């Protein structure tokens, strides 16, 4: 008998409980040689089975809720030059870019317990072919996928294939006015990208989301983005600005005020994050935790299970349970289903 019960989503409800019970009792009963002892021993086995099944079983586990999100920063490189983000300033050399097969292996290993795989960057669609490979594998493995993109490289063929796979596309939009857009993106591409967003809405429908970063600089623009999304029937989410090495934008309020969610433990401990070179961390803001300054391992060199099983990995998870850095309010700490209005 497995020590931990978890309902498979295809076997929910009473029938699964009956199936599980019979599956436990039948082989056990066969071991009882004395027929007079059969009933009392099966009774004892039923008690044991009931305790493992019902006693103190958390609701989320009882219903088979999956526990981890796999987040892959597929590249640092980007075709935009947003001042809010410093990631594009350090694109990884070609030689350090992870082979896609390593990530696919990692996804296969973890898929049983993933509620979501997320691709972020840089700009993920710079590696459109790899992105589609991951999207197809995620579909095969029945793992929902989310891509966070600037929409610059969207095209009809990609969107149609993506639509068929049923995954979610999140486009980053901090302004819907041309001048501000170009300022926020560091590129004059408003007239190119806006039609692509409309095309994405037409093809993807409800599979399209828009996300904005709220900072002092974008504070006046975000309400307009929200209104624009309402008009076009697109789900929208706002997240607070975080410094990822750029330091050109600023929080809309002080850090203390941003920590609105003090009672909730950092959900990032459930996250498994992979950098462009294959380094694994539990959170892209790992560096804030002294024990986590170095990555936990690298999926090009080690099995992901081995990486997650190290003592340091467990210790960092424990620290993250109570850490209260402002990054815990970021969208990577929450499933997409809870994020969008």
């Amino acid at each position, binding site marked *: 008998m497995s020590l931990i019960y978890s309902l498979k989503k295809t076997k929910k409800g009473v029938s699964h409980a009956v199936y599980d019970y019979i599956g436990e009792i039948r082989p*056990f009963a066969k*071991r009882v040689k004395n027929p007079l002892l059969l009933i009392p021993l099966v009774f004892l086995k039923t008690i044991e089975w009931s305790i493992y099944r019902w*006693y103190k079983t958390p609701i989320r586990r009882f219903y088979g809720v999956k526990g*981890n999100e796999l987040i892959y920063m597929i590249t640092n490189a980007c075709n935009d030059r947003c001042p809010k983000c410093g990631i594009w300033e350090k694109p990884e050399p070609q030689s350090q870019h992870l082979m896609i097969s390593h990530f696919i292996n990692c996804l296969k290993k973890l898929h049983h*317990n993933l509620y979501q795989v997320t691709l972020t960057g840089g700009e993920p669609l710079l590696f459109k072919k790899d992105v589609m490979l991951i999207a197809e594998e995620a579909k095969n493995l029945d793992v929902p996928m989310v891509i966070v993109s600037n929409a610059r490289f969207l095209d009809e063929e990609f969107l149609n294939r993506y639509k068929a796979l049923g995954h979610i596309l999140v486009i980053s939009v901090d302004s819907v006015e041309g001048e501000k857009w170009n300022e926020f993106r560091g590129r004059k591409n408003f007239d190119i990208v806006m039609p692509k967003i409309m095309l994405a809405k037409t093809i993807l429908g409800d599979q399209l989301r828009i996300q904005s970063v709220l900072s002092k600089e974008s504070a006046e623009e975000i309400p307009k983005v929200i209104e624009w999304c309402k008009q076009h029937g697109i789900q929208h989410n706002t997240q607070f600005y975080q410094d990822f090495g750029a330091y050109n934008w600023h929080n809309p309020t002080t850090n203390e005020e941003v920590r609105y969610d003090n009672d909730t433990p950092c959900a990032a401990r459930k996250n498994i994050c992979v950098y462009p070179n294959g380094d694994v961390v539990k959170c892209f803001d790992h560096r804030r935790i002294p024990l986590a300054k170095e990555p936990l391992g690298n999926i090009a060199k080690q099995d992901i299970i081995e990486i997650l*099983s190290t003592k340091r990995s467990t210790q960092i998870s424990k620290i993250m349970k109570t850490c209260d850095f402002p990054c815990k309010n970021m969208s990577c700490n929450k499933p997409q289903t809870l994020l969008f209005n």
Partner: protein
Amino acid sequence: MLDSVQKQSKPFDKVYIIDDASPLKYKIHHDFVEHILLNENGGPARARNYGIEKAISTGAEYLLFTDHDCILDQEWNKQMTSFLMTTDFGAVGGMTYSWGKTLLDYYHDINGTLAGKWLLPDRKELWYMPSLNFGIKSFVVEQFGFDERFPTAAGEDVDLCLRMRSKYKIGFCPEAKLWHDYGYKNSISGFNKFMKLFKKYKSSSATVYEGHTVLMWDASESIYKGNIHESNIQS
């Protein structure tokens, strides 16, 4: 327990008893034992880690674990040690039988409550082995110690095995036998104890699950007398 430790056909190089600040008063009359009293109760994981540190500091190559309520077969050390010496397994579990003769004890025997679990489908290595009948190589335990977040004797061995299996295999040595005293006086009065035992095991599962969400999916099967020789694990 100590008498059975003393009567081993192959004597132990060193024996540590770690007393986890037990309220019981007792005396140990065996001079081959190093008796260590901890100042405060920290749970079996902490106590075992203390013993591990001591043993490794004296250069031990193979570390064997048992509990105060166990009686060892006289070949236990010989079998466990030679298994670790002659195979590539990072750790080994032995076969545990009930010491008592009640119906509840018989239940544990055919249920395999404390005899570990085969990793399916091959039954060539173990999914987990309980720490009352457990051996491990020193270089393995240096990398994978017990997690001291487990406050009681429940789940800490499952956790260790799950982590360890990411890198090493756990073998099974059915010839390394010991008897565990569950403490049932009879089947009626022992029923409450029986319930408490499984409740304790289940309570620990949340912590185990939290740490090993990605490792829980391997299928396993309890070991009992009828399936201890189902595979040739030496192959």
